[in-house]
């Protein structure tokens, strides 16, 4: 198994995980140990298996082979690349994601995300950036131990990207372990402490972000970094 270059305890561990769908092996003998309190960015080309890896680690799909151990369902959250928006107001949607918060805390989160004017707007009428911010604060408000983010800033404007990155950093500082995918090299360099590089459903390289971006070990990673 490949260990993260850290002495911290494992937050989530996958051992020899394989997942096949329609006769295609989409995750191939994945073994990874993600340590607590870090930001890990999963990189790779489209179709490399990044989202599927996050889904498997989060428990949304059940691999045919291998084992995954992690925190309980209540202690982990996932923000999808395209948030699943319920047919209700932004506030009601937020409260569905994170039930039981008192009104002042709800207000604070909306204020933080600059979404106060949109509180009563139907969630499905929010813009891409607004809905992504809403999904993120909904996940962060419950202070999860482990947070999965699937391309949280894809197709968003600079303001939304700035907000989301600041929240990711803040969550990490308060102890949340973050595993995210990204296609944005600059963003990965800004946020990542560890990098998992995937190709064709396999983990090709795991390294600290510094090592990965300065001297990648595999040819696949070198080629990838040339293009991104």
């Amino acid at each position, binding site marked *: 198994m490949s260990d993260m270059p850290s002495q911290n305890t494992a937050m989530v561990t996958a051992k020899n995980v394989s997942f096949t769908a329609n006769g295609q092996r989409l995750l191939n003998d994945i073994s990874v140990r993600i340590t607590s309190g870090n930001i890990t960015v999963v990189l790779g080309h489209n179709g490399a298996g990044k989202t599927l890896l996050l889904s498997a680690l989060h428990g*949304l799909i059940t691999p045919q082979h291998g084992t995954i151990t992690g925190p309980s369902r209540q202690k982990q959250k996932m923000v999808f690349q395209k948030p699943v928006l319920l047919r209700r107001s932004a506030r009601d949607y937020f409260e569905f994601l994170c039930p039981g918060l008192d009104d002042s805390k709800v207000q604070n989160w909306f204020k933080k995300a600059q979404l106060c004017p949109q509180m009563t707007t139907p*969630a*499905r009428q929010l813009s891409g950036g607004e809905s992504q911010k809403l999904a993120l604060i909904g996940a962060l408000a419950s202070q999860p131990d482990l947070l999965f983010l699937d391309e949280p800033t894809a197709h968003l404007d600079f303001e939304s990207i700035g907000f989301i990155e600041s929240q990711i950093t803040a969550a990490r500082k308060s102890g949340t372990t973050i595993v995210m995918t990204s296609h944005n090299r600059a963003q990965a360099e800004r946020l990542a402490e560890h990098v998992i590089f995937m190709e064709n459903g396999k983990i090709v390289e795991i390294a600290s972000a510094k090592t990965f971006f300065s001297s990648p070990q595999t040819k696949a990673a070198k080629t990838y970094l040339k293009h991104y």
Partner: protein
Amino acid sequence: MEFLTPFKIAFSLLFSADAELMAIIRLSMTISLSAVACSLFVGLPVGAILASMKFPGRQAIIILSNTLLSMPPVIVGLIIYILVSQSGPLGWTGILYTPYAMALAQTVLVLPISIALSRQVFETLHTEYNPLFMSLGIGRWQRIKTLVFDARIALVTIALACFGRAISEVGAVIIVGGNIRHVSRVMTTTIALETSKGELGIAMALGIVLLTIALLVNVASQFISAHFKRAGLDV
């Protein structure tokens, strides 16, 4: 009789708010609305369960409810008649030839509609919501509650479809209601009776009311769908 005479009589009865005519309209509306309420009360949770859960016999229930969609109303009337007649298993209720039996027959008729249509809506919604439900670890009853709440707009149009079917029903209600004046005479059974007697005026008046109701149901359905689509609340 001139061609236009029934229309003249019909409008005269309607504009004078003829007491018997109004009583028939009231009874029709009460029976059909009760039947729709009962069918939604049972049908929506069943639709949501069929859409969101896998269990043995699920497919059999789907096939049964789809088969009942095409059940002839007179057969439903006959079955309810046998059930609630004095020698039947529900004979003790004493509801034969009362509006209760008519509401029961209409409920049985529209229940498969509410199950089939709501199942379709809930399936669409459940496919979309399932990753979020799984991610949040939402339990099965909370899922059903969420699906029913979020499909509320589609459910209004389902209710209107059920109402349209119930109010226009004649075969079953005439069997179990008996078409008794001041007791179980509704719009459709009155139209059938009065036409057979050659009294086309009252039949036409009730026909106009039925058509107006059908028109209003459709307008309301379109309006509600369009309004909530704009608000991003459609399914």
